[in-house]
């Protein structure tokens, strides 16, 4: 099912590009680990976006060139990064004050499940033996003005990720504003999930078949 989906839908890079084109000029953006990290590559020239990484940097720049890595300059995914001219460092309480205080415009996160009301589950599958780890996800969804999810439309075993109600433990309730998947871009509205754009070759029928929540 995943393979089919990828053949007719967007690639991960295309998903990131779709999201990148929707970021308004001058935005402060926090990019989660995984596909969201790719977004920075696709922001068009002329648009200036300031990236926040919650471990304590505003003004995150691109990945350093080989050999230029600094072990003390990393992002929230613990990957090597750079800092732009005009960047600044701060401690964790100040960093999460930015998040919780509503100063970040957009947070782009991955997801295990999103419900039709915008509930997000992305930190724990609740399985026995899995080590629970939450990081900054709950703070981001609670504080950032606009929360976008970018994820494969279906899980690796073909299950729907856009569901009536999340079965996994929640990261936050009614927090997601928009979802970018390999099949479509979907807004979370008061009336439920609303399709904004379909990937090439994807029909509404096909999309609904692969989605548990009504569209």
């Amino acid at each position, binding site marked *: 099912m995943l393979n089919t989906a990828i053949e007719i839908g967007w690639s991960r890079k295309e998903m990131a590009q779709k999201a990148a084109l929707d970021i308004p*000029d*001058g935005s*402060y953006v926090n990019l989660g680990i995984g596909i969201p990290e790719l977004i920075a590559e696709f922001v068009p020239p002329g648009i*200036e976006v*300031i990236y*926040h990484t919650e471990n304590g940097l*505003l*003004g995150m720049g691109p990945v350093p060139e080989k050999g230029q890595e600094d072990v003390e300059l990393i992002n929230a995914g613990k990957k090597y990064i750079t*800092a*732009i*001219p*005009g*960047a*600044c*460092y*701060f401690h964790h*309480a*100040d960093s*999460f*004050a*930015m*998040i*919780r*205080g*509503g*100063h*970040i415009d957009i947070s782009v996160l991955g997801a295990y499940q999103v419900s039709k009301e915008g509930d997000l589950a992305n930190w724990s599958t609740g399985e026995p033996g899995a080590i629970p780890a939450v990081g900054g996800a709950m703070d981001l969804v*609670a*504080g950032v003005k606009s929360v976008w999810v970018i994820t494969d439309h279906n899980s690796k075993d073909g299950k729907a990720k856009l569901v009536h109600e999340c079965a996994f433990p929640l990261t936050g309730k009614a927090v997601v504003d928009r979802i970018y998947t390999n099949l479509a871009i979907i807004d979370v509205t008061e009336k439920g999930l609303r399709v904004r754009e379909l990937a090439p070759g994807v029909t509404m029928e096909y999309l609904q078949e692969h989605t548990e929540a009504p569209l």
Partner: protein
Amino acid sequence: MINKIVPSAAEAVADIFDGATVMIGGFGEAGSPIELIHRLIDLGTKNLTIVSNNAGSGNVGLAALIENRQVKKMICSFPRTANSTVFPELYNKGEIELELVPQGTLAERIRAGGAGIPAFFTPSSVNTPLAEGKELRLFNGKPFVMEQAIIADFALVRCHMADRYGNLTYYKTARNFGPIMCTAAKTTIAQARRVVQAGMIDPEAVVTPGIFVSRVVEISNPEDESKLVAEKRRYPC
């Protein structure tokens, strides 16, 4: 391109509206954004709630704003200083409201406002008249009072250096309330002694990250409020 620099103090404050809550930085004269305040007087906006540690000195700056009857209410910790006559006079006539807040609680309420913390507990003011009517609660057997965050529509601060992103540094004890007020207002306006190229401020030494600042105006030679007060000058000056 992000560019928060605006050409004049008048433009910087032009959208401050009647009834707005405005935080004004400074501890006494140190760090008071006097040019921004004077342009707010020019603007004539009424019924303001002002959050500021003091209530102004002499007849310039914040005192002049109060004297011009633009302020409905002061939220501050110390509205009585050596050269403060405007506020006491109006207060005694019942023509201005006062919410008196211990200085540390004022700072923490502002910090909480910027940090998305709606309320917190503090030991300050417990068993005093300033805790009356507030929720008390024991933690480890000791009493604390619950205090709520303050958020403003605008913050006016004075800083030392600024860049186009709104990154700010301050100068000595003029730092005081500036950094926390920047975080707690919907629109933050900073007057800077010097605007520099992005990247010129050491990223380790930025005090206010640009995300907290909406507009920056360069005022290279700000009026020295304490001198104006000593010379008994009055707004406009």
